[in-house]
């Protein structure tokens, strides 16, 4: 089960014709898919489209009633290949993943799909993780659309536009026999808005119809000579068909044309930010009434030459607002205009930055430069918004750099991955530092303080592959690679484990098995411990690893047993046995465990059953404020507080109420022989008679002795 439940949201999928749908952008997409008569949906979770997958998962019953098949694909490549169902049959299908990382993985299948073309509408919904808060490399999905020739939709970030893009996307795909990519930026995915719904549509031609009446068309398969014909067909037939469709259905929108002799061409996704920037410059109002002509490209690939030429014909210049680099659109614009011998000047990356997110403030500054050049009388310098002026100094006059630290994400309170890296730190104290190859997942936080472990990460599931070169006999140390269970099943089993076995690698892999793809929101996978009503789970990673030929496999069933973790790591790094070594480190993701266990505990307590709740604490009197414990943990619940002792200066360690009693603090103080300040408190609710008897006996004896202690201490303090 995913970390967020969507019971209420699922009901929104049943909203009928004419009723209002309110919710997140990505849920609107889900509803739009059902309104479009989609036959199948597949995908791989990852921000910002995880919610789409989670909602569909929770809505499986509704989907089945509509005859829609939904899959949690093994990877983005699997998801993309699923679209093969639309090649020969009039089946509408959609897949979704995080981009560009997911698109990278999917691109083999996407290229094959785009080459042969499709019969049924094929929609690829990419959640663009770019800019603020992004966790991946900063690249553009646009390049994938161009290289494989798939049409790219970039709708205005409001729910009606997004829903319209889904519906038109299928039609465009069918009209041009070409897969269509729908690009949604992270804020658009999470935007809360509303639109007027339509009824869900059951596909007229279903998966059953296809399976019972199989069709094939060898000319759709990528093999010579068809592959050469595909390329021709792309430019000679599908391209013009797309341009025609885009024009006929007015997918791109033109606003306020004729109001000035200059204009702005923008990606649909940039619309709201551009309008707000214009509003702040006094060139638009809150309702989007612009005083500058706008050509909004809800389709950013292909451009329609005629539209561009028409928009530019009456203008001295245009500004291209295009986020990301390279500046594909600006280049394309130049080509279209130069070929037509039109002299309209094109601005873009000269007044706007080449790289980085286009925030409203960024666009505003670019717009200001542009408008000042062509119509300075429109700008009121006495009323410029703050964002157009240089950033103000803080009142104290000094920079706040020293006071405001970056706060990157890190392991949650009680995260079971933390002790694995604590163990690694302790092992390194003994055996020296090692080359550590990282993977994608929460475990990548190991590269940050306090652990500072890990040299590279080459992609999801590629942790062990990233250490493949370090395979030589002439060495005294082994490398350590990290892989999460998500990455393992995604491809790591073959790309990492299979590869290491085949190439006789003598290094160590730690597979972190926390029962979920935790970083993407806690979705189930093959090795999840939970029973999932629609998926097969509870399969063993250790068995899989043995299955591809690894002989040295150790499973640590509780990562919080630090001493065991340390011993196993040490053994793996020092054993004389050669060959690939795999440690499967298991413990449930604490975020998901708490969600699962907490309500149960509360219920037990209410029902009068005995419940023990554990938390850690630090005795401030014995803590000397060295913070070694924090440097070996980094838990959000283990922190510092001002020293209550007036003689001491340095802050002491303290454990916050948010502690879940995972046990690592105690294990660390033992394994690293730190200090005696840690204690674990156990509060027993609804204690048994034995608990009460023991507690009573203890208190009687202890309080008698404590009174003696107090007598010794009497009258020292006032």
């Amino acid at each position, binding site marked *: 089960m995913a970390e967020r439940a969507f019971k209420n949201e699922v009901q929104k999928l049943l909203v009928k014709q004419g009723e209002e749908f309110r919710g997140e952008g990505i849920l609107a997409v889900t509803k739009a898919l059902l309104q479009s008569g989609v036959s199948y949906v597949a995908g791989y979770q990852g921000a910002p489209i995880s919610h789409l997958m989670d909602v569909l998962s929770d809505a499986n019953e509704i989907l089945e009633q509509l005859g829609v098949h939904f899959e949690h694909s093994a990877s983005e490549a699997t998801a993309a290949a699923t679209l093969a169902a639309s090649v020969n049959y009039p089946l509408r299908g959609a897949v979704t993943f995080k981009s560009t990382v997911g698109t990278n993985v999917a691109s083999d299948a996407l290229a094959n799909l785009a080459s042969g073309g499709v019969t049924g509408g094929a929609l690829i919904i990419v959640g663009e993780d770019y800019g603020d808060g992004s966790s991946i490399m900063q690249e553009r999905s646009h390049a994938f659309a161009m290289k494989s020739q798939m049409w790219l939709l970039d709708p205005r970030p409001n729910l009606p536009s997004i829903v319209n893009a889904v519906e038109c996307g299928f039609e465009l795909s069918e009209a041009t026999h070409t897969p269509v990519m729908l690009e949604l930026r992270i804020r658009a995915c999470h935007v809360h808005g509303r639109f007027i719904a339509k009824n869900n549509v059951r596909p007229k031609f279903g998966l059953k119809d296809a399976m019972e009446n199989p069709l094939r068309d060898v000319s759709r398969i990528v093999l010579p000579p068809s592959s050469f014909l595909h390329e021709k067909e792309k430019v000679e037939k599908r391209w013009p068909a797309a341009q025609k469709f885009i024009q006929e259905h007015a997918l791109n929108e033109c606003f306020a044309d004729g109001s000035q002799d200059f204009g702005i061409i923008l990606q649909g996704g940039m619309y709201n930010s551009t309008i707000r920037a214009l509003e702040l410059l006094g060139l638009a109002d809150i309702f989007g009434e612009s005083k500058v002509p706008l050509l909004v490209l809800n389709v950013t690939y292909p451009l329609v030459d005629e539209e561009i030429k028409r928009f530019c014909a009456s203008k001295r210049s245009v500004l291209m607002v295009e986020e990301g680099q390279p500046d594909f659109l600006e280049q394309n614009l130049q080509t279209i205009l130069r070929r037509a011998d039109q002299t309209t000047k094109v601005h873009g990356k000269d007044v706007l930055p080449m790289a980085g997110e286009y925030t409203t403030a960024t666009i505003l500054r670019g717009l200001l430069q542009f408008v000042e050049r062509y119509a300075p009388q429109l700008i009121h310098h006495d009323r410029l918004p703050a964002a157009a002026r240089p950033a103000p100094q803080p009142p104290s006059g000094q920079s706040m750099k020293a006071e405001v630290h970056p706060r990157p994400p890190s392991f949650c309170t009680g995260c079971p991955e933390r002790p694995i890296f604590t163990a690694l730190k302790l092992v390194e104290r003994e055996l020296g530092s090692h080359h550590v190859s990282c993977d994608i997942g929460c475990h990548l936080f190991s590269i940050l303080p306090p652990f500072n472990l890990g040299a590279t990460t080459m992609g999801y599931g590629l942790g062990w592959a990233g250490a493949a070169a370090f395979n030589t006999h002439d060495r005294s140390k082994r490398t350590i690679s990290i892989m999460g269970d998500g990455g393992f099943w995604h491809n790591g089993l073959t790309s990492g484990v299979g590869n290491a076995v085949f190439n006789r690698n003598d290094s160590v892999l730690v597979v972190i098995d926390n029962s979920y793809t935790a970083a993407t929101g806690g979705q189930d996978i093959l090795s999840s411990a939970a029973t999932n009503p629609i998926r097969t789970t509870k399969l063993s990673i250790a068995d899989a690893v043995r299955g591809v030929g690894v002989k040295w496999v150790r499973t640590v069933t509780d990562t919080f047993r630090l001493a065991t973790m340390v011993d196993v790591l040490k053994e793996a790094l020092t054993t004389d046995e050669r060959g690939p070594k795999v440690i499967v480190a298991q413990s449930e993701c604490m975020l998901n465990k708490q969600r699962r266990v907490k309500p149960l505990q509360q219920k037990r307590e209410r029902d009068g059953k005995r419940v023990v709740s554990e*938390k850690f604490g630090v005795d401030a009197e014995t803590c000397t404020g060295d913070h070694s414990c924090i440097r070996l943990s980094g838990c959000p619940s283990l922190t510092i507080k001002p020293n209550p002792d007036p003689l001491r200066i340095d802050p002491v360690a303290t454990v916050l109420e948010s502690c879940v009693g995972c046990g690592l603090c105690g294990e660390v103080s033992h394994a690293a*022989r730190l200090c005696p300040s840690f204690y674990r408190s156990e509060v027993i609710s609804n204690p048994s008679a034995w608990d009460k008897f023991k507690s009573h006996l203890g208190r009687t004896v202890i309080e008698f002795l404590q009174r003696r202690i107090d007598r010794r201490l*009497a009258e*020292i303090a006032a």
Partner: protein
Amino acid sequence: MSTGAIFKSETPRAITVAILAMGGEGGGVLADWIVDLAEHSGYLAQTTSVPGVAQRTGSTIYYIEIFPEASARAAEKEPVFALMPVPGEVDVVIASELMEAGRAVQRGLVTPDRTTLIASTHRVYSMTEKTAIADGQVDSEKLLDDCSGSAKKFVQGDFSAMASDARSVISSVLFGALAATHALPFAREQFEEAVRRSGVGVDSSLIAFNAGFGEAAQPSAVKVKNTEQAKKKLGIRLRELERRIEASFPVAAHNILKLGIERLCDYQDERYAVEYLNRLEPVRDAEARYGNGDGLLLPEVARYLALWMSYEDAIRVADLKTRHSRFERVRKESRLSAKQVLRINEFLYPRVEEIADIMPARLGAWVLKTGWASRTISRFAGNGRILETTSVRGFLQLYMIAALRPWRRKTLRFLKEHKKIGEWLEQLILLVPENYSLAIEVATLPRVLKGYGDTYIRGHRNFDAMMGKIPSLLAHNDGAYRLKQLREAALADESGETLAATLRQVNR
């Protein structure tokens, strides 16, 4: 073609709200409440965020815009909402923590013409602050100054503590504070209805909401920073020594000396406190004679001598852990109800060294020298142990160790520590006439002596290395500054690399 002012200056605009929080703090819940509140009160609303992996405890921004539905209907148009805050254009900034409030100011989101800033003043320390060996805390006063100087209205309070008191989450308290600021055009009842509609933990949320509302509507008296420390008072047993302090030591040192004798009497006995004062007399005299009159030396020496003389041996740890006051504190922290039972489990790892430390000096030294004896004790003490102090058995073990206190003066550790204390004081007193500022730095050197086990060993190694440099530091005019640099280097990292590098440079 239009020229000049296109719109009247008072065009309708959206009300904008930015929430700066850390993942997992409920910023999303707060944003959802605001949207629900607005939508049920005749407003159109949009919220967005960039959760993703930043949710995992990293700092993150939620952004909301609202606009009156009636205006939209009158215009027969839909407003276009922005998806991210623009510096200078934010009406309300809510920060769940003080450094996050500082981040909002740093990003230019808080401006004096427009922004109501609601910030919780508690600190969630950054990793840099937490992992420092000594004190890495940033200056909260500066953060507060920048917040209040940047905002049109600054509403502050420890909203986290209020949430904890109400056994709720900070988002409820912040929502209450928001209601009290009247920064949004809605009444208190409308806010409360939004909480009720959410349907989860409504009662505790409303209690927290009320606390936040109260604090923001009528801030509790601003705490004046207590620069003048209250005069330290002592119990009857220490009256005589107190009088001695007041009669024969400078006033500037009184408080710290009183804290010192209280600590040492608590640690050992009155005689130990007397010894403490005796050891400080030469320091007092040297400073009076050769000092520059700033009176800084004696208090510093008094502070570190008291701490050093009350070094943490097993006797001290057992003593502190068995006290009634400590049990009460843990009970309070655990919010123990009368019907519940509490168990306290200690995580102890007595090594041979710590056991030898509390043996009679000659026996302890012999044990450490003698392999088979050490090994035997190791086998007994061996691995880490978890001791339940709330059980009779566990308590008695610690109680018996604490009961060794009267014999402490004969223990190996006592002799070792006091030998070093003597050397430190001797060096210090010799330095006073020669280089007073260097003497002050030497007085604060014991700050690097911390912890137990390996940490303790590292601290002493660093201390010795720095003490060893004193003769050569005397040759420099800026010897004090150089020693300060060394001390900071010793506290910069665990590996000792920074100190080693600084030690190499210090003589240049």
